[in-house]
């Protein structure tokens, strides 16, 4: 089970953001993607997620091209810098969203949500309103939500960047432990080398 990226080219008008990028991510590996802002880190994640069609190149899963796989069947989990939790649903319903899409039975769903919230350090948060969460809590919920449908690969787009330094360190350590425990395959985008070291197995540089 490997994710391979081959000769990726993305242009925005006259600007070439990714120019022939190739890489592989092995099963259970966490790869850090480092680079200054505007170097195409987020663009890479958007291509892998299927949100952006590259001008050239391919994203493959075990050799099979993902190009024709629609967005909602790709099995990727996405966590943004600022959570992007659904504000009209409570914490539990946010985490359960992906499970509902998979039509998992209600009782199973509740148990899974509770397990995930415990895993990210927020046990018993099911009924909390999204607006009452702190930035750190929101990111933990976003992580639980992305993990719930058991994605083949987790895409983390600067998930800690909006937090203050102290909290960032603590969460980076938590995140590293969590990804190891679950054996999740992940691409972890950051502009902070220390953070990449703390979370990723290996790191590539863009730009």
């Amino acid at each position, binding site marked *: 089970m490997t994710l391979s990226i081959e000769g990726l080219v993305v242009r925005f008008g006259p600007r070439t953001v990714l120019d022939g990028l190739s890489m592989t991510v092995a099963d259970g590996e966490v790869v850090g993607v480092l680079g200054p802002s505007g170097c195409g880190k987020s663009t890479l994640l958007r291509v892998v*997620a*299927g949100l952006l*069609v590259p001008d050239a190149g391919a994203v493959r899963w075990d050799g099979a091209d993902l190009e024709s796989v629609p967005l909602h069947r790709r099995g990727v989990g996405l966590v943004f810098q*600022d959570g*992007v939790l*659904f504000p009209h649903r409570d914490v539990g319903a946010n985490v359960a969203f992906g499970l509902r899409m998979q039509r998992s039975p209600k009782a199973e769903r509740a148990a899974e949500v509770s397990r995930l919230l415990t895993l990210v350090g927020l046990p018993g948060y099911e009924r909390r309103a999204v607006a009452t969460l*702190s930035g*750190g809590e929101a990111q933990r919920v976003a992580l639980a939500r*992305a993990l719930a449908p058991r994605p083949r690969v987790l895409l983390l787009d600067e998930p800690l960047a909006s937090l203050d330094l102290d909290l960032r360190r603590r969460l980076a350590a938590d995140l590293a432990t969590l990804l190891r425990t679950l054996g999740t395959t992940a691409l972890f985008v950051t502009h902070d080398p220390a953070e990449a070291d703390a979370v990723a197995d290996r790191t590539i540089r863009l730009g």
Partner: protein
Amino acid sequence: MDDHGAALTVAAAPGRPATTRDGGERPWVARWVPWALGLVPVGFVAVFFVWPVAAIIARGLSAGGVRDVLADAELRHIVWFTTWQALLSTALTLGAGLPVAWALARCRFRGRRTVTAIAGVPFVLPTVVVGLAFLALLPERWHASVAAILLAHVFFNVAVVVRTVVPLWERLDPRYGEVASTLGAPRWRVAAEVVGPLLRPAIGAAASVVFLFTFTSFGVVLLLGGPTHVTLEVEIYRRTAQLLDLRTASALALVQLVVVVALAGWWGRSQRVTGGAGDGGGRGVRLVAAEGARTRPTGRRRVALVAVLVELIVLIGVPLAALVERSLRLPDGSHGLAAWRALGSSGAGTSRPVDPLASIGVSLRTAAIAVVLATVVGVLASCAVAYGRRGAPLLDLGLMLPLGTSAVTVGFGLLITMDRAPLDLRGSWVLVPVAHAIVAIPLVVRTVLPVLRSIDPRLREAAMTLGASPARTWAAVDLPLARRAIAVGAGFAFAVSIGEFGATAFLSRSGHETMPVAIVRLLSRPGALNVGMAMAMAVMLLVVTVAVLLVVELAGGAGRARDPLR
């Protein structure tokens, strides 16, 4: 715990300079000034709106009119028809309008601004023009059908959906949908479970307004419903103008008023709960810059975009083209200018029921007076609300009432109250521009007030510390900044007046017909030439309205571009 999430959301919300509304700060004008400014608007609205409507209520309540209405199976049927056609119109309008809103909010394509402007046109067209356009378009056997009414209502109100939903949708963070997709939601579930609920304040507002407009629709139903499909508005008109049954008419107007007020109350409450349509409901919904959220559509999205644009062009273009064609069609099926020539030649000597050319003059004169009235009263009211503290929200709300009241109610109310001293205006043409002004004032206030409120108070403070009196300060700061908004409001008032039909139908005097009234009179006469002339006049009315709106749009657009405060 930190609160970055909250800080981000606040930063993303539209900024508004702090006002001097809070606590100990010193107001820049004396406390009595807003009250004095408010006197004229309050007086005008009280005499020409509140009193007439109160008279209807009193009449409707007396003598068991309402009880009789509710006991009468035929009238109950009319209430029921009015309701279900409005509900169905609203549903169809949302169905047709939301795809258009999606295209304008989310897609980047050449001519997007032009399409946005075109999508807004039908809403400001006179009802008579729209009614005639559909008469021209639809085959004879579709005249006097529910389908014709529904089509015309959709034609009108798609613009309401676009104007209400696009401003929120284009700023809604697209990542909500993206996250939902990656979590396994197919497109329709993204729409139904994420984007839809997040747009709910705007969609709810649009649905309420469309329901209100279609529930109180008059001109369209009168022209397209025939004798069998009658709404409350049309029945009120029929009872008053044809049967002289004022008691039943008052009772019907009261029933309608109750429904409208109940709806407005419910809507107002839901808006308070969700925080209004403009800012995503204040529920911590993330907003972004509109331009950045639009993408060039590819693949199936492009197919969808093309389909939506075709739908819009067909919906708007075909009826209007049919109207123009019909005005040029001769009885033998060929085309020519006979109807247009007849417009010009029909002088006093001919046996025409109305003088078409004279009605143009009447319409322009009426519109000029209505514009002056609505603009003066509207600007005074805006100032009173913007600078006042206590009482200002109440005045604001009170000034919006005419917007929720049907034009027929206004016209009917004026008819039954302005008939005794000191205001015996029976048969006076003055009531027509007054009624138009009442309908237009809310629009002027909605245009001018936001600009006055958005003025940075430090500009006034700077002027006053430099020695300017409050009056000079107003002339030096507020007036120049609001001038364009006032012009736009006046333009709206003109468009309202030139096309107004509901109130005018009650108040118009023979020999003083405005264009919409003259058109309907012509249409009710037998003979192909009369129909052709009605169509030709509708085309003229269409051209005048669109021309005025184009000027308003250009003035408004240029104002936004140049005004650094917005």
